[in-house]
């Protein structure tokens, strides 16, 4: 009886691990897409509204879904308040926030690099220049999105079945 319960637990755990891995593969292109929407929005705020950066980021943070919204809201908060104390520049605040929030997203290193590069120029130059940098970051992210979709198709189902099968293997070996 106890053996049977153990088998069930192992099977359950293995399946869950597989599903979680699969979910990460599915979440990555989705989050990149959301990030692209955010950049598009930022482009509009800077290009047409000439909204100040803290306000623009706060607005973007307000419309994005969970993991990314915190990132933008955090940067916006630091810009409008904390930097008054410490005299931090946009670049430092941006880097700190991206590093802190990255583990909670499903995105990888390439996207992080693109975002950090954008952060180092944001707010520091004229409008045309800003728009160019945002577009550059968008193009990089689009490329990453395509490869993320490829990965999703290839590995999402694979990792799910791998979880179930791996668990079954362990069960067989145990018995």
């Amino acid at each position: 009886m106890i053996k049977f319960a153990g088998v069930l637990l192992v099977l359950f755990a293995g399946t869950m691990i597989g599903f979680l891995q699969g979910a990460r593969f599915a979440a990555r292109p989705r989050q990149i897409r959301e990030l692209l929407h955010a950049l598009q929005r930022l482009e509009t705020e800077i290009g047409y509204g000439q909204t100040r950066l803290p306000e623009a980021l706060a607005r973007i943070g307000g419309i994005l879904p969970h993991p990314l919204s915190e990132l933008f809201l955090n940067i916006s908060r630091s810009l409008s308040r904390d930097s008054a104390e410490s005299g931090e520049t946009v670049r430092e605040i941006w880097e700190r926030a991206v590093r802190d929030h990255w583990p909670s997203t499903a995105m990888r290193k390439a996207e992080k690099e693109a975002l950090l590069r954008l952060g180092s120029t944001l707010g520091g130059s004229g409008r045309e220049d800003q728009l160019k940098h945002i577009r550059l970051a968008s193009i990089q992210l689009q490329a990453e999105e395509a490869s993320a979709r490829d990965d999703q198709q290839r590995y999402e189902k694979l990792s799910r079945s791998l979880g179930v099968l791996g668990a079954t293997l362990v069960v067989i070996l145990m018995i």
Partner: protein
Amino acid sequence: MPQPLMELFPTSLRLVLEQLPAVARESLEEIRIRENRPLEISYGSRYSFVREDGTLTEQDQGAFVPSKEQCRALLERVTNHSIYAVEEELRRGYITVSGGHRIGLAGRTVLDKGAVSHLRDIAGFNVRIARAKVGFGAQVLPGLLDLKERTIRHTLIVSPPQQGKTTLIRDLARCVSSGEWHHPAARDWGSRKVGIVDERSEIAASDRGVPTFDLGPRSDVLDACPKAEGIMMMVRSLSPEVVVVDEIGRPEDADAIYEAIHAGVRVLATAHASDMSDVFARPVLSKLAADGVFGCYVFLSRSGKKVEHRIVTAEEAMRESSRRSNRSFGASPRDDPSEKQLGRWTDHPVPGTSPVAQTHVNVKARTMPTIRSPAMIAPRGVDDD
């Protein structure tokens, strides 16, 4: 020094500025921050360098030297991390921050088709601290009233930079819009609608459209609006009775002022000049003055902490300028303090004297030139009488 202003500075700079001696902090006028050069402040018409511990020194050696990082952080703070949003201001060379403080910038200009498109490599900041000085207008306003029309005359406030033009015009706007005429004959006049075209955001220091300085209950502010266009917009849509503009000097400003005065609106303006001859030396101002647009002129001069003012009516100004051109050299400067003490400017409000008597003298003085030199009076010059 106002606290919101201190928040602009990065921590290391703020620590230095917070340690300034109280006397300097209270009368602080400018903070000059230059990259890798000594930190300078000017207060009460004097200047000093600042050491790292906040003490003042006349020598530039040993003074605190702001670093490149501090200047970068300061620039980010004053632009609210958004240089792209202040491109227009950069083109003009200054940024106005909340509270009406103007920050002049020095750096490398970037040209586009021969015109300055913006500034880059900004390495010099001049933080000019704006102060609301309630009560200044009360001294000046009684001399500017048009008793017949029950409002103020078209007035030009003239002074060199840093003498308090903007402070005065702000307080005058407040007095007019709240109906504080400070004159016994004007007790029942009520207030007037005031339209303020605030191209440099210095008069009202608007924060998202709402003035942060007290401008009385009946003021409308067009923030960051070019003066010429702003005056026309005001006259067309906001029905002001008095239009207030800062620092006129371009030909289109003059055109707009002509439009306004013929629309039955009183104009209160300021201009950079040190005396009447300067006014006549500046093409746009001289045309306005020669046409007799302004009913009176207020000259500001400063001795130490005190700002002196002198009100000159259009006729006296005319006479003065024609006499000046006749005599040219050898004439004693009109700014000569001895002249002032002699009471030649009869309508200068002397504290203690009754304003009624002043106005009486004023009227007498203004009728004289029509007999003496009629040719010099332009037809419109006396339309305020």
